[in-house]
């Protein structure tokens, strides 16, 4: 059994990507990654050799995130977004940059349960059953959160793109 750091290192960039999308804030994202890795260290003896370490780490991150929400370390919404727009990578075109800004704003308004599923599937490319395993919920719950999360995101982004107009179903 090799050591934790050597095995976990390859997944750290992905944990950081997911954490940033989840929290919407760099510092909180890095705190979340750090807490996740510390828990990984202390629980590594429980990891089953040969099983998917990436899924295991995402599971720990999910649990850490939920604990942080519960204890008020993270607020679930109302993330300040003014700073976020400045972080948009320069390579994006102006139109893309607007869309990216709208997406971030919409993401922050999404309930955490929905945001997690939308990100695990849409950004981290987890299979639905993997997402269910990471979140510790049935597959059907993943599907309903994905469906509702994506639809909310679509409406929020459409509203942002056409100010003053409300989407009427």
């Amino acid at each position, binding site marked *: *059994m*090799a*050591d*934790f*750091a050597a095995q*976990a*290192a390859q997944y*750290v*960039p*992905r944990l*950081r*990507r997911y954490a*940033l*999308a989840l929290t919407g804030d760099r510092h909180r994202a*890095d705190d979340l*990654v*750090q*807490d996740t*890795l*510390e828990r990984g*260290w*202390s629980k*590594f*003896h429980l990891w089953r*050799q040969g099983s998917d370490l990436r899924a295991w780490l995402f599971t720990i991150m999910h649990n850490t995130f939920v604990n942080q929400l519960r204890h008020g370390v993270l607020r679930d919404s109302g993330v300040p977004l003014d700073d976020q727009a400045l972080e*948009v*990578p320069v390579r*994006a075109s102006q139109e*893309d940059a607007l*869309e*990216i800004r709208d*997406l*971030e704003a919409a993401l922050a308004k999404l309930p955490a349960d929905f945001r997690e599923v*939308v*990100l695990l*599937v*849409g*950004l981290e*490319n987890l*299979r*639905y059953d993997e997402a269910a395993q990471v979140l510790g919920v049935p597959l059907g719950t993943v*599907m309903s959160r*994905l*469906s509702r999360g*994506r*639809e909310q*995101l*679509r409406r929020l*982004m*459409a509203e942002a793109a056409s100010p003053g107009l409300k989407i009427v179903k």
Partner: protein
Amino acid sequence: MTAISEIDLHKFVDGQLDPARVAEVEEHLAANPEAAERVAAYRRQNEVLHARFDPVLDEPVPSGLLAKRESRWSLARYAAIVAWMAVGGVAGWALRSALDMGAPQSATLARQAAVAHAVYVPEVRHPVEVGAEQEQHLVTWLSKRLGADVKAPSLADMGYALVGGRLLPAGDGPAAQFMYQDREGRRLTLYVRRGAEVNQETAFRFAQESGVGVFYWVDGPLGYALSGDLEKSELLRIANGVYHQLNP
């Protein structure tokens, strides 16, 4: 052709649809502009998510994230402990509980204590579940869970203050761990569990497990193990102090 469900649309978006059904979904979308619009929007969501967050993948990882723990606790030592647990510890416990091979309980006690010591002593943020400021609660709680009178001896005379304690699984039941720390931040743990009464001995025994020294003894229904990364003589002195406090 079966009806196209909401789930099929998401599978289509995420490339998780059975290839045999892709054509059916495409046909459905051609005939349903509303569904086609939603599918396009969901696909775009995924693209924008990647456009926004993929650059993180190319950033250098802050050195603190993985290196911090390494400096506190050298990789070599961690690897040694993990390897030893894998070979001797975990496998040993699993076999023992499955086959009840009857190896001396006390040897298991020392090993379990050393593992618990190695796992929790490096913790910076969460070394204990209940801190020393709630000592009375801690002792009451652990006594209740272990079903025996558990005490947290005071090691102040020997320069160690109680940090707190936690409840742990010990193969077939609960165990308690108290953690102590001196001014330099060196830590000792006292591990207590039931079911070590197979050998009714009270003599001190010493075991060395991957750099962690353990003095252990059995006293009535409880087994005790004091673990620390100290000189053997120093650890023995403290173990004596613990024993005499528990048996005034």
